């Protein structure tokens, strides 16, 4: 997922201007680099594994103000900050970190918000270790990067605790109507950016809560819903309108909305079509897609059944197939719902797992078992059609494949059967076809992703833009937000230029 980008000239200039301000110079002088490097990375306070793996309360507890200031002091405030280049949305990271160091948390929050509409979310779910923190100079110098993600979380949590972000003075309304399809990370970002510029934004969401994958996919113990509710409330204060339970492509098409006066569109409908392995027995009762399993638990709150009406199988022996963040979320959820054994079954080795390191550590601490180089070949059901066991095959690593990772190859005759009563298939998703099916002229790629011009995120239809998983197939929250920023800038330009082109 690591993607070193070129910092746009305007951002580089802004970062440099802040770097050269007097207070920054003085701060750099006040504490010598040697002193800064003596401070160890401040650990994220966490709830004990044996307590947290029984409930859905948040695992990470957040830094205290003292610890955050100390962590910020570790930052060397280097002249050519790699962190900025590693951030898909282009946050001026050194400036916000230094504002934390001097204790001006409100200014730090405002600085982040210039580039990121969902900082409390990103502070929790971004893969910082492959982005901003990977390119941190301190990491090169000492091996341990500044905890930028933890600081981002601290700053935005402090802001939320103080009543949330102050709505900036918005320019006079432009009177131009913008439709955003999908209230996920990409859609919320576009909505925030364009509302701030004075456009009239309506977000159309198919489900009944805003957030997309942040609300149906990522569990409460990693991203509490209250955080998302607060971020959405901020957008409402900015003037964004939300139409829930509205399925663009079904309830109304893009063309219908155009007839209703919408002039620009952003499609951020996500990767909403779960993949299965197409092995025998995959439709047995008790075999879920990760999307269904997590949606039942998170969005529908099946963990609180029967107070909430939606049920989910608790599972005594749960196997989750896959090695990404969604697999980690699923397996840790199964553990919390009472599984005695909760296993990850992954076809490659630990080295190749795409999940964030922190999630893997947390899962291990919580008693999750990892079965590497293993792939299910069929599921076996009982007389009622419920899964009772699965047959697996051992793999070994062969030559590198297109992704650069060594390709797993089956070990002949290594089949074995293991007892399971809950299986969650978390091997990725395909783009949801609803909009492409109902929008004539929308160019779509081989895998169903919407084709875009990456410089503007414009699709083949004038005025229609897209970003996030619907163009990438399956990526991260922050990459979706980066797309959204690009699209918002292009959409604003188009609306101001009078709608042509």
């Amino acid at each position, binding site marked *: 997922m690591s993607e070193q980008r070129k910092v746009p000239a305007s951002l580089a200039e802004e970062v440099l201007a802040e770097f050269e301000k007097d207070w920054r110079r003085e701060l750099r002088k006040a504490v010598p680099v040697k002193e800064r490097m003596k401070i160890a990375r401040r650990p994220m306070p966490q709830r004990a594994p044996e307590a947290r793996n029984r409930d859905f309360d948040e695992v990470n507890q957040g830094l205290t103000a003292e610890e955050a200031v100390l962590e910020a002091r570790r930052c060397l405030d280097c002249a050519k900050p790699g962190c900025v280049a590693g951030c898909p949305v282009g946050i001026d990271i050194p400036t916000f970190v230094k504002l934390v160091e001097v204790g001006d948390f409100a200014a730090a929050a405002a600085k982040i918000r210039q580039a990121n509409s969902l900082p409390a979310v990103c502070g929790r779910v971004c893969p910082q270790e492959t982005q901003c923190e990977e390119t941190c100079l301190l990491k090169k110098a000492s091996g341990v990067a500044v905890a930028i993600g933890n600081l981002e979380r601290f700053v935005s949590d402090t802001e939320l605790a103080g009543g949330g972000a102050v709505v900036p003075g918005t320019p006079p309304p432009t009177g131009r109507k913008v439709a955003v399809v999908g209230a996920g990370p990409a859609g919320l970002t576009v909505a925030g950016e364009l509302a701030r510029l004075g456009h009239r934004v309506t977000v159309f969401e*198919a*489900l*009944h809560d805003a957030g997309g994958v942040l609300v*149906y996919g990522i569990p409460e113990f990693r991203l509490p819903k209250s955080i998302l509710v607060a971020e959405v409330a901020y957008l409402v204060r900015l003037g964004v309108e939300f139409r829930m*339970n*509205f*399925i663009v492509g*079904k*309830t*109304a098409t893009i063309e219908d909305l155009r007839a209703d006066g919408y002039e620009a569109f952003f499609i951020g409908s996500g990767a*909403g*079509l*779960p993949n*299965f392995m*197409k092995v025998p027995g*995959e*439709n*047995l*009762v*008790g075999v*879920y*897609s990760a*999307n*269904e399993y997590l*949606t*039942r638990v998170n969005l*529908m*709150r099946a963990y609180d*059944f*029967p*107070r*909430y*009406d*939606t*049920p989910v199988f608790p599972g005594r022996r749960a196997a989750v197939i896959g090695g990404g963040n969604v697999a980690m979320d699923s397996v840790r959820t199964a553990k919390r719902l009472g599984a005695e054994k909760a296993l990850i079954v992954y076809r490659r080795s630990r080295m190749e797992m795409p999940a964030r390191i922190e999630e893997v550590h947390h899962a291990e601490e919580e008693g999750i078992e990892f079965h590497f180089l293993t792939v299910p070949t069929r599921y076996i059901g009982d007389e*009622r*059609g*419920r899964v009772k066991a699965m047959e697996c095959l051992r793999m070994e690593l062969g030559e590198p494949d297109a992704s650069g990772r060594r390709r797993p190859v089956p070990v002949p005759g290594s089949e074995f059967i293991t007892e399971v009563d809950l299986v969650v298939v978390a091997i990725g998703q395909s783009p*949801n*076809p*609803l909009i492409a099916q109902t929008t004539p002229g929308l160019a779509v790629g081989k895998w169903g992703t919407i084709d875009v011009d990456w410089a503007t995120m414009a699709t083949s239809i004038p005025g229609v833009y897209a970003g996030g998983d619907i163009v990438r197939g399956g990526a991260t929250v922050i990459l979706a937000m980066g797309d959204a920023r690009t699209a918002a800038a292009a959409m604003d330009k188009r609306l101001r230029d009078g709608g042509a082109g």
Partner: protein
Amino acid sequence: MPRIVRRERLVPNIHLLEVEAPEIARKCRPGQFVIVMPDARGERIPLSIADWDRDRGTVVSVFQAVGTTTRKLALLGAGDALAIFAGPLGLPSEVGPFGTVLCAGGCYGIAAIHPLVRALREAGNRVLVLVDVKADYLLYWRDRLEPLADEFIVSSRDGLYGDTEFVGRRVRDILGREKIDRVAAAGCTYFMSSVAEATRPSGVKTVVSLNPVMVDGTGMCGACRVTVGGRTKFACVDGPDFDGHLVDWAELYARRRSYFDDEVRSLCAWEEERFP
């Protein structure tokens, strides 16, 4: 939030729900469904669209009160709001000049088949309507369906309509009597599989409107997967209409029963809370 304009009991346990939903009313076509959730703690369930009024902007569904969600719906009335009434979902039923079409509906499916009957008739087909009820007093919407049908047939197990057999026998009789070009069935899984089995020997194309467990209804979760012709399909986006001769009925029965114990628990918990 979508407001209910009308909720009435048609016959014991079967209710009609008419909801203000102008966008859905404008868009919906025969064979499509809505996702409904009665309140914030509710479950999302699919309900077939039974009728609509584009001018008034309302959509009608008919449901059987069986589980917590439908029991909750059955207690609502005009003016009440629903947490969710979203759609229209699924692909519309195929409507064409087929010739003679037999439309079979059982239980809530008597209403669910209604828009298709109307559309097939408008498309110039000869339409036979077969409704199946357990007993005479459970028959509803005869007044709506009979005028649309070239022939209206009731199969009932109380003998009042000349028979005590389940629907399959009636279907076989009709197939033996005249040339049928196509059969469409909507109702419970047992009803639809019985119709499909009855037509299988003759090979008459039989389209069934499946109603598996769903969560989002937009293709996102895969709860509704069914095996059709050996391939996994999502009923919400690939259906709900499928070739009844290709559906893996045994799998569908098992998947429909997935949460049977939980449904009972949920209902008991709700009854204790609602009627202490």
